[in-house]
């Protein structure tokens, strides 16, 4: 297998860091060399954030550049649009349909892009959407949307040997016991959308 590059994009505070760590550790458990690159600090205060996960036989650079991502997991629509140039020609974009206004939109200095999913689809990008926030609400845990998004990813990395079982084991290892049940429900729900 060639190495795989997965980008996780969203807004600071949405739980993209944890998602990256779970996917990275699941890839490690499946026997790969892994690198995960994170953003800490300033942009975490509600800014645009990105986490890179790469796995394969041997990984050099921890970052993913334009045209290199096999999969982008977007936690927010405008972020999906912003980072879409990072996708490979035959790459897959999995995006939550959530929309969060950035400050320039709140102050009226800019407009939130319209019909993002339609426009992205029209360019021929392979795209899957999910209502991650809706799933999180349905399981009764507002914070479970990142695990829902991992659920949506599960079917696409199974062939790399990162099985659903490895993923649930990793989720179990990384989440506090008291939120585990709802998160695992979100993981399941996202798979049988």
């Amino acid at each position, binding site marked *: 297998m060639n190495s795989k590059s997965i980008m996780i994009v969203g807004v600071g505070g949405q739980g993209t860091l944890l998602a990256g760590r779970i996917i990275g550790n699941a890839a490690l458990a499946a026997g790969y060399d892994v*690198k995960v690159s994170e953003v800490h600090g300033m942009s975490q205060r509600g800014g645009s954030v990105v986490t890179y996960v790469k796995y394969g036989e041997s990984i050099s650079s921890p970052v993913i550049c334009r045209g290199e991502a096999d999969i982008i997991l977007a936690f927010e629509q405008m972020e999906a649009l912003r980072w879409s140039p990072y996708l490979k020609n035959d790459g897959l974009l999995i995006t939550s349909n959530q929309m969060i206004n950035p*400050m*320039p939109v709140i102050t009226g200095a800019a407009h939130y*892009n319209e019909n993002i999913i339609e426009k992205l689809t029209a360019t021929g990008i392979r795209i899957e959407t999910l209502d991650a926030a809706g799933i999180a609400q349905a399981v009764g845990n507002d914070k479970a949307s990142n695990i829902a998004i991992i659920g949506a990813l599960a079917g696409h990395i199974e062939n790399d040997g990162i099985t659903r079982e490895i993923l649930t084991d990793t989720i179990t290892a990384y989440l506090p016991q008291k939120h585990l049940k709802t998160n695992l429900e979100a993981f399941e729900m996202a798979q049988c959308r």
Partner: protein
Amino acid sequence: MEKNTKLMLGNEAVARGLFEAGCGFVSSYPGTPSTEITEFAAKYDEIYAEWAPNEKVSAEAAHGAAVAGVRAFCGMKHVGLNVAADLFFTAAYTGVNAGFVAAVADDPGMHSSQNEQDSRHYARAAKLPMLEPADSAECKSYTVAAFELSEQFDTPVLLRLTTRIAHSQSVTPLDERKNIPKPEYVKDPAKYVMMPANARGRHDIVEDRLLNLKEYSETCSLNYTEYNTARIGIISSGIAYQYAREIFGKSVSYLKLGMVWPLPDKLLLEFASKVERVIVVEELDDIIESYCRSLGIKCEGKNLLPLTGEYSQEILAERLKGRKYEFKGVNEPVPPRPPVLCPGCPHRGIFYVLRKLKLFVSGDIGCYTLGALPPLLAMDTTLCMGASVSGLHGKVKAIPQEASSSIAVIGDSTFIHSGLTGLAGIAYNRSNANILILDNSITGMTGHQHNPTTGYTLKGEETRIIELESLCRALGIDSVSVVDPYDIAQCESVIKAELAKDCPSVIIARRPCVLLKSVKKENPYKTDPAHCKGCKACMAAGCPALSFGDKKAAIDSVLCTGCGICARLCKFGAITKKDQL
């Protein structure tokens, strides 16, 4: 069985290295991207770890511990080394006893920094060895190697990280903690008391040591070559090496430098003689490149690659291979998403008032620097920690008539770090400067570290609180007041009153960061469309929980923490607490 391995952040791996190297003392001041080293180190019971009030204090404490005979460490961001530099230039003379290692994390691309300086200059200037790892496994093994080097050559050792190394996770093998016998401290003023007569002798030792280190660097395993082809040879280190590897693989030869100061003359010359074209790939300054030139090596580097910003395999592919990225996709601009003050942030109300009063605001570094962004736009300057206080002092001494329309803002952690000395200068020189301390009871920007004003240590133990009011009074400021930043009317009247007085003052705006677990969220507010006139007065607060559509304001009840700033800005009573409607 395979060795125990773990996916670790570079910073976590440095901490693991501290553990395995038998390090017993860690003192640091937080700073992205170095902070987590010390947070992870604090998790080991075997290591005493603390937050120091600033980097200079941390480095001096670590050096003191090392001279006493315990392996010691301090970690800081690149600009922290400016603050701590004084110690290092002379610690190079005294040397150490037990090992002393300092990590310094540069931030190419300025993800979270005010400048993009290259710390390698310090190694050269202070004549200290510097190691630079290229992944987490090296973060750990180089940390261990740095302690050995420190003791072998009796010198402090610098460990240079960059953001991508510090904040990337990669697979790291784990080993046991070494049992290091504690060296005796032997009284030796000629070595440890740096007054001129003694220091002269020590300077000769520094120069000899540097030559010995250079000799060591020629053959040590930290530097290695990989000959794949004679056509192109790449000289690189750290993360830049990984980018080169990513695009060239085995199609070029490499000299990978793990020790970036001093540099190995013979090894560089030998490598250059074996390849037709030498390209130096280094982020930020052209330190290795200009060194190669000084040896007479014909090489390329900054003629192809930028001096500014963070590198990536894309930049290398474009500049070194002529590969062009072709964009296909939606061609429309996406508005930026800058970081913002969180909903409920206690800094918001203050900046609203400062903007309203149209003051000159001498700013500083912390979450509150975000008060410089739209719509608050309430900051005129930001340079380095502490400069708000001393910079304002300079301004009001130079132009006294502007004292009543100027103010400095500084966070609690930043004030303790280096605002104190500026305030002493204000009192002493009878300056008419007014200082606002934004006391959110935590070091916010770097991710909630305790500091001398919070009442807890790094290890979570209770400790005494430095009370800012008494501290400022003791420093000679008679007019000290405390306000609640959620109460913007009170803030406005106190600020106006203090600015009108003919003496220096400190106003402490006190309210803990809303993100602290100890802070209870209030019920969210909501807007009443029947009363909302669409005047947008509330929008001036720049709160991410507020939005404006269909000519009415709306509040996201999940994001709202119930601080009530927007309600205070509404003249029509259209914003009320949820349980009140």
